[in-house]
Each structure stands twice: as structure tokens, then as C-alpha cells.
């Protein structure tokens, strides 16, 4: 593969790494992987799903990496290389980054080559998560590019003997009168090393050429041709193939394995690697690795794993677990009116990436290189240091796209697995492709959640009081410097201690309704659940918004009000009203037959990011329902790429529908039993509704994160539509629960 990026001074990265370790060194895990493992109660203040807080008027990533050449380099052939510390996850971040750079440099996006996250090469932007890639990374590139344009103009003016105001910039060329020079000529082979100290003047809205246009992604043509796109596709001379043999359950440990038999029986086995209870095989060919994996399974004895609570309904189990309570908001319990209350439940939901996680590793005796689809190459590197006992400067981690992840899936785990294996087999590229059952059975799921809501509906048809209790496990156990957060770290000889509970606050994301309510109390109760969990698209917002919007639908009915009018009555923010009106307008002329229902859902993601409303139409058929239509509207501030935004909204609505209708991670006493698509069915083509997405552009407002905005509203809307169609309210997910 091509890897011609110049290695750059990583001193900035080291600096931010120090800051990072100081603030994030104690982020850890919340699943009971090893019996008797105690977690401390030390919750970190930090949100591992967001970038560090703003310290200046600049986007945080730019404030941390202010040198222009950290973001932008001018190549000799007329192209520009743009660096982002974010990963392509299928959200089309590369084209958005290319568009903002193009806009501010008055240069076609075709000239932009976007380099994805790589340690020592791109800025350290930590994780590609929480829908902040546009807000942080693209905005950083934008201000760096606008500043670069000003500097280029000034240098060209000097060389031309003209005033900067008289220098034009057009598609990579600077000119005045009859003089012109390319960016590279003006720079004379140098890069722009100045720093950005203040927000730059961006190109005025009415002059924009690229921002706001549906510029096509370049990677889709490569996908349809079957070119090398994914980490799964990487091939290296002499590459060997690995498979891991998982224990029968979280708490099992390896007692005995007959390695000799496996080595004798299977051709092409390079090595069986055993380190504590971490067991894997490396073979010359992929089929041989699979055969050896099977033979190892048959020749390994494991201790009895700990028992999962398979006998009690999960909803009850969660309610009975010990929990710690945190007050999210409390401005009183006053408020008269009719009391309406309900409990809502969401089970464990999996990311379920279509392509199981994969990574390639290579150790040359000095340096370890990892190719990964991790959402955070720097945090992964910093976490691997302890696992493989190498200093960070000896580990290079390069981001290569994988199958869509929707949060923290097996990406980091497979990278850690391969790191251990590469260290055992120096000078060979080791490729580890997780099997379907590795991903289904071992990924960190989105936490099961329970929500109790109680509202008082006044005589005037408005809500007088709102009480909300949410029970949740943690919502992020990303690596964060703690090898205990990597699967392998829990099974190797010196298994890592756990140090904290990860990002608990994700459990109450969007737990405060965006509606105007005179008095509210929201409490979050954190339990330590039976399954391994981490960040899944939207974190707690999905379940919280499901509960809030279901209750809003129910209250509207009690108040005898139109569901849209009822929500509007409780909304002051005109942008919230606008998205709601947009879907109401799309759905207004729809005929709703008997056994059919129309429902609505709304939320502003994180109460600070994109506004999203969804209308759903469902049809009831006997015991089952079909979602026939979804209309979504989103306001994500200034739109960089309307087609990309629409794509995210459409996909989010469909995925959310799949979660709410079908999805539930099941387990028995030993382990997760949802290990393939038969026992964990996701929405198929025949069940997918017709979707329509409306995007509202706000060219003068900052761009807001959008990738997770639809998860809650879509589930809320479908639930309300089902209530209309069937007369039964959806309280417990999935709808098609066994």
C-alpha cells in the first residue's frame, strides 16, 4: 500500500499526550469480566466521547495544534494534503474536510487529498466520536486554510511587488496582473509553519463555492470497483493470518491446551500463541488459520465461567442491582395536575458491524506498526504501550477505514490482539480477521437501560412537572490508556487492573427534555451490568429520547391535542419548532387507514447539537407491525455537504428502526448467545420503510454534529405510530421481543 506521508515532528503530539494522560489516565471498564474484579467508584470528569474543552475562541483541535502545516501541506504537483485526526467511518468525513479546505483556499476539492488519523503524522484529535468531527476537525481545517490563504497572498504580494489585496487566488494559483505562481512556487518548497492564533475571516456566505454543495465522495467509486479500501483488504508480502480462540464466557480462564496436537495435525501453522488465557494461532493461509482455530477449540480446557443472570428478566435484574445515584437536574417537584407515569426499557444493543473487526500488525524488532479502523489511533497507541511493553515512540498506529462501527466496536480489541501476535512473530505482517461470533459475542454493547417517567398534566393542557429516573451502565470504556479496556488486556498473564467506571454521564445524555417545563427532576442511577458495554451511537440519548417522546405522545393524547401542536406548546426554540414543522408538513397529506398510525419524535442531540424530528407511519398486521414510511428533518447548522447529511439522517432512521423493532443481545448463564445474524436479526430490505430526509440549512450558524441525531427521535416516532395503529403503547424494546 502507498504510505508516502512525510513523517513530521510529533512534539505537539507528545505534548498533548501528556495532557491527555493526566486527564484521562483512569478511564476504565464496567463489565464483570473476571470474577472478583473490583471497580473503584472514581468517575472521571472527562467525557472520553468528546474532545477537550475549549480553551480559546479557536476550535479545540486547532487550539491544541495551531501550526498550519499540522493540518495542511502544499504538494509539488499542485495538490494539497489535508490532515485530520479523525477516521472515516462511513460518514464521509473526507469529502467534508476537502470541501472546507477547498472553500477557504479557493481551490477545487479535487486537489485535496485527505489523510486520515495516523500517529506521528496527523494531529492528535483523540476519538472520532460524539459527532464532533465537523465541529472540531473540519472547523480546524477551515480556519487553518483561511489563515493559509492570507499568508499565501501576503507572500505572493511580496514576490510580485504588489499589494495583498490585489492578489487573486484561484484553484491553487496566486496571481496579479500578468504575474502568477502556484502555491508551491510561492512557498519555494517550504510549508506554512505559522500558527493560527485567532479565528480567521472565513469566506463570506454569499461567495461560497464548495461548502453547502453535494460534492461527491471519491471513495464510493473505489468501493464499487472492489479496489483496496478497507483494513480488511490490506495485503503485504509474506503476510500471515491469525485467529483468536475465545473463552466460553467472560469469566473463564484457560486451564490446559494441547498445542502439539494442533501443530501436528494442521498444515501451515506458524505458531500457537498462549499468554495467560489469551489463545491464538498464526498460520500461513487464512483457511489454515481457521482450521487450526477449530482444532485449538477442541483441544483447550477452560475453567467454569461465572454465571450470567439468565433466569431473571433483564429489566427486573437491572432494577434490583445496586446502583449509585447522580442528580442531573432538580428544580422542584411542584406542579399540579393529572399524574401520568410509565416505565420504559431498552435491552443491550450491539453495534453489529457488517464486517467483523480486523487489524494488521508488524514488529521489526524495534518498532511496532498497527493498521486499524480504531476510532482513536493516539489513545490506542498509548494503551498498547503497557500491553506490549514498548514506549509510545516505538509504536505507530495508522487509521484505515473498516466496516461501519457506530461507536466503540471490536476495532481496538482486534488491534490489541494483533499487537500481541506481531510481537511474537517479528518481521512478518500478521493479519487478524475476527470471526462473526467474535464480534457478535465479544464486542462492547450499548448498555441496557431502564427509564421511569412521571409527569403532571395541567388543566390547561401543559406539563406542570416532570420526574425522570434512568438506570444505566457506563457508556464508554474506550481504551483511554487503560489496557484493561482491551479484551486481550483482560486475559493475558498479567491481566490489567481496572481503575474506573468509564464515561457514566453518557447514561443521562438527553435525559433532560428539550421542552420548556416549569419544574423537573432527573436522577441517573448507575449499575454494573452483566455484559461488556461501551459507546454505541447516541449513548444514552437513544433510550432517554425513546422514553421522553413516548411520554410526550401519551400526554398529547391525554390532553386531546395534536401531537405536533402539543410539542410546539412546550418548545420555545424556533429551530426546534422548524424541524418539527418540516416533518409535519411532509406527513400532513398522508392518508392513514385503519390499522395504520402516524407518530412523531423530536430531540436536539445532547441538547446542544443538531435538531432532529422524525415522523413515522406504521401498519399493524396481526401481532406484527411494518414501518412503511419515515420522514426526517434535521438542522445541523451550516451544512457542509447536504447529501452527506441526508445520507446520515436516512441511515440513522433506518438503523434506529432496526434497533427498536428487532434488536436484543441475548445471553444464557455462560455467555452471549446472539452470535450470528440468525439469533440477532437486523432490518432487511423488505422491512425497510420508504425514507425521506429534509435538511434545513443555517449558513450563518456553526455546523453541529449530526451523525447520532436521529437515533432517539426515530425510535420515539415509530413507538408513537405503533401506539396509534394498535392502541398499545410501546414500553419495552424491542417491539418484536420473544
Amino acid at each position, binding site marked *: 500500500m502507498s504510505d508516502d506521508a512525510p513523517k513530521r515532528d510529533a512534539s505537539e503530539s507528545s505534548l498533548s499526550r501528556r495532557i491527555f494522560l493526566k486527564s484521562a489516565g483512569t478511564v476504565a471498564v464496567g463489565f464483570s469480566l473476571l470474577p472478583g474484579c473490583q471497580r473503584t467508584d472514581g468517575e472521571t470528569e472527562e467525557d472520553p466521547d468528546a474532545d477537550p474543552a475549549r480553551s480559546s475562541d479557536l476550535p479545540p483541535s486547532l487550539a491544541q495544534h495551531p501550526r498550519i502545516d499540522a493540518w495542511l501541506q502544499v504538494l509539488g504537483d499542485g495538490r494539497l494534503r489535508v490532515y485530520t485526526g479523525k477516521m472515516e467511518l*462511513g*460518514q*464521509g468525513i473526507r469529502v467534508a474536510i476537502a470541501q472546507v479546505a477547498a472553500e477557504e483556499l479557493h481551490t477545487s476539492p479535487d486537489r485535496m487529498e485527505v489523510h486520515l488519523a495516523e500517529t506521528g503524522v496527523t494531529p492528535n484529535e483523540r476519538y472520532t466520536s460524539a459527532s464532533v468531527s465537523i465541529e472540531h476537525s473540519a472547523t480546524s481545517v477551515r480556519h487553518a486554510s483561511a489563515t493559509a490563504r492570507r499568508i499565501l497572498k501576503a507572500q505572493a504580494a511580496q514576490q510580485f511587488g504588489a499589494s495583498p489585496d490585489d492578489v487573486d487566488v484561484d484553484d491553487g494559483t496566486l496571481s496579479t496582473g500578468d504575474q502568477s505562481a502556484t502555491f508551491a512556487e510561492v512557498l519555494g518548497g517550504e510549508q506554512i509553519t505559522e500558527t493560527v492564533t485567532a479565528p480567521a475571516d472565513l469566506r463570506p456566505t454569499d461567495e461560497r463555492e464548495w461548502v453547502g454543495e*453535494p460534492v*461527491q*465522495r471519491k*471513495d*464510493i*467509486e473505489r*468501493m*464499487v*470497483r*472492489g*479496489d*483496496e*479500501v*478497507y483494513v*480488511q*483488504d490490506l*495485503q503485504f508480502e509474506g503476510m500471515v*493470518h491469525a485467529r483468536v480462540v475465545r473463552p466460553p464466557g467472560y469469566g473463564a480462564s484457560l486451564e490446559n491446551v494441547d498445542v502439539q496436537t494442533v501443530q501436528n495435525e494442521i*498444515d501451515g501453522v506458524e505458531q500457537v500463541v498462549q499468554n495467560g488465557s489469551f489463545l491464538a494461532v498464526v498460520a500461513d*493461509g*487464512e*483457511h*489454515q488459520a481457521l482450521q487450526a482455530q477449530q482444532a485449538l477449540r477442541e483441544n483447550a480446557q477452560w475453567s467454569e465461567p461465572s454465571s450470567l443472570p439468565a433466569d431473571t428478566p433483564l429489566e427486573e435484574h437491572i432494577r434490583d442491582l445496586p446502583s449509585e445515584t447522580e442528580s442531573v437536574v432538580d428544580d422542584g417537584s411542584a406542579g399540579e395536575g393529572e399524574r401520568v407515569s410509565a416505565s420504559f426499557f431498552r435491552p443491550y444493543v450491539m453495534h*453489529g*458491524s*457488517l*464486517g*467483523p473487526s480486523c487489524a494488521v500488525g508488524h514488529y521489526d524488532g524495534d518498532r511496532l506498526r498497527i493498521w486499524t479502523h480504531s476510532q482513536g489511533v493516539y489513545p490506542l497507541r498509548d494503551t498498547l504501550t503497557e500491553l506490549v511493553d514498548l514506549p509510545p515512540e516505538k509504536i505507530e498506529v495508522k487509521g484505515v*477505514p*473498516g*466496516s*461501519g462501527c*457506530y461507536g466503540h466496536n471490536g476495532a481496538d480489541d482486534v488491534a490489541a490482539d494483533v499487537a500481541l501476535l506481531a510481537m511474537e512473530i517479528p518481521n512478518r505482517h500478521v493479519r487478524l*480477521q475476527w*470471526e*462473526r461470533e467474535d464480534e457478535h459475542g465479544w464486542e462492547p454493547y450499548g448498555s441496557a437501560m431502564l427509564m421511569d417517567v412521571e409527569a403532571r398534566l395541567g388543566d390547561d393542557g401543559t406539563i406542570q412537572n416532570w420526574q425522570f429516573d434512568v438506570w444505566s451502565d457506563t457508556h464508554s470504556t474506550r481504551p483511554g490508556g487503560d489496557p484493561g479496556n482491551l479484551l486481550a488486556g483482560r486475559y493475558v498473564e498479567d491481566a490489567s487492573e481496572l481503575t474506573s467506571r468509564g464515561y457514566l454521564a453518557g447514561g443521562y445524555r438527553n435525559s433532560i427534555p428539550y421542552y420548556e417545563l416549569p419544574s423537573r427532576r432527573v436522577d441517573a442511577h448507575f449499575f454494573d451490568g452483566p455484559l461488556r458495554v461501551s459507546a454505541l451511537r447516541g449513548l444514552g440519548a437513544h433510550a432517554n429520547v425513546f422514553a421522553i417522546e413516548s411520554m410526550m405522545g401519551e400526554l398529547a393524547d391525554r390532553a386531546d391535542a395534536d401531537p405536533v401542536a402539543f410539542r410546539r406548546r412546550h418548545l420555545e426554540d424556533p429551530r426546534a419548532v422548524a424541524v418539527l414543522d418540516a416533518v409535519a408538513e411532509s406527513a400532513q397529506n398522508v392518508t392513514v387507514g385503519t390499522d395504520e398510525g402516524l407518530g412523531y419524535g423530536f430531540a436536539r442531540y445532547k441538547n446542544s447539537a443538531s435538531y432532529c424530528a422524525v415522523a413515522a407511519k406504521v401498519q399493524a398486521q396481526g401481532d406484527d407491525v411494518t414501518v412503511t414510511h419515515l420522514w426526517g428533518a434535521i438542522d445541523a447548522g451550516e451544512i457542509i455537504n447536504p*447529501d452527506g447529511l441526508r*445520507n*446520515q439522517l*436516512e*441511515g*440513522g*432512521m*433506518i*438503523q434506529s428502526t*432496526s434497533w427498536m423493532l428487532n434488536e436484543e443481545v441475548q445471553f444464557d448463564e455462560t455467555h452471549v448467545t446472539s452470535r*450470528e*445474524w*440468525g439469533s440477532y436479526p*437486523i*432490518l*432487511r*430490505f*423488505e422491512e*425497510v420503510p*420508504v*425514507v425521506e430526509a429534509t435538511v434545513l440549512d443555517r449558513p450563518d450558524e456553526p455546523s453541529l454534529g449530526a451523525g447520532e441525531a436521529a437515533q432517539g427521535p426515530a425510535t420515539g416516532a415509530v413507538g408513537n405510530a405503533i401506539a396509534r395503529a394498535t392502541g398499545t403503547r410501546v414500553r419495552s424494546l424491542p417491539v418484536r421481543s420473544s
Partner: protein
Amino acid sequence: MPQQQIQLTVNGDDHTVTVDPSTPLLYVLRNELGLNGPKYGCGLQQCGSCRVLVDGEARATCQLPVSAVEDQPITTLAGLSGEDGGLHPVQAAVVDEQAAQCGYCVNGVIITAVALLSDTPDPDRAEITDGMNEVLCRCGTHARFVRAIQSAADAVDA
């Protein structure tokens, strides 16, 4: 099983590979022939990611022994485009509709759609979703795929 020489015809070219004949076709295409179109998704014939055309029919390759398809014409994603590199109408429609998020499912979608359109050149929405039902997409790009297949059908018609 000991290795054997197997003759394959892939994208119009003849190949001789020396492999264990029970090796699933998927691994031979990807690792021996460097064809990245077919993807590993489940290994259980449940998701469609690994599909190729075998004699014009869309088939999963993750459990299909390479020895079973000796001498049958195999077409992968890369083989759909013309000699001049021009895209097949279904490939072109996927690009035009920007019908991909992560795109990991795109191989199965395109291969299956090509087979569908050769049987049903002018499908309605229900025929498309029925024909595509064995292919999974986790990103929720289905609506765009349906549009792309419709417009590919129209393009072929025209």
C-alpha cells in the same frame, strides 16, 4: 486436506491455484487472486457480503469450496466494469446516488442487483426489496440502494 491444483475462470481469465480444495472460494479470490470485491462478513451464508456471480448467479463464497466451482465462470465486482474501465450500470448508479456509507455491503448489493436485473430487467420496488433481501446493510443505506437499482434498470432500458 492436501493441496491440489485447481483451475478457475475469474473475470474472463484462467487461473491455476494450488490450494486445499476445501478452501472456501472467498479466501482464494481475496488472498490468492488479490480480488477485494467479495468480503468476509459472517462465514455463514447469512449476509451476502461475500457474493460473486457464478455462471451469472449471485452466490455466497464463504462456505463454497473452491473445488466446487472449477471451470465455472466467476465474476467479481472488479469484473463487472468494461475492458476500458467503464462502470457497469449498477456500479455507476451506486456512485451517482452516492449509495454508500461505510460501503462494506456494496459488493453484495451490486452483485445481487446485477443478477436480479438480468432476471427482472424492470423491477418495481417490491421486486427489488425481495430480490435484495438476503443482503444485509448495517448502515441503513437500503433506501439509496433501492433508488440506485431503479435508476440502473432505467438506464439499461433507455
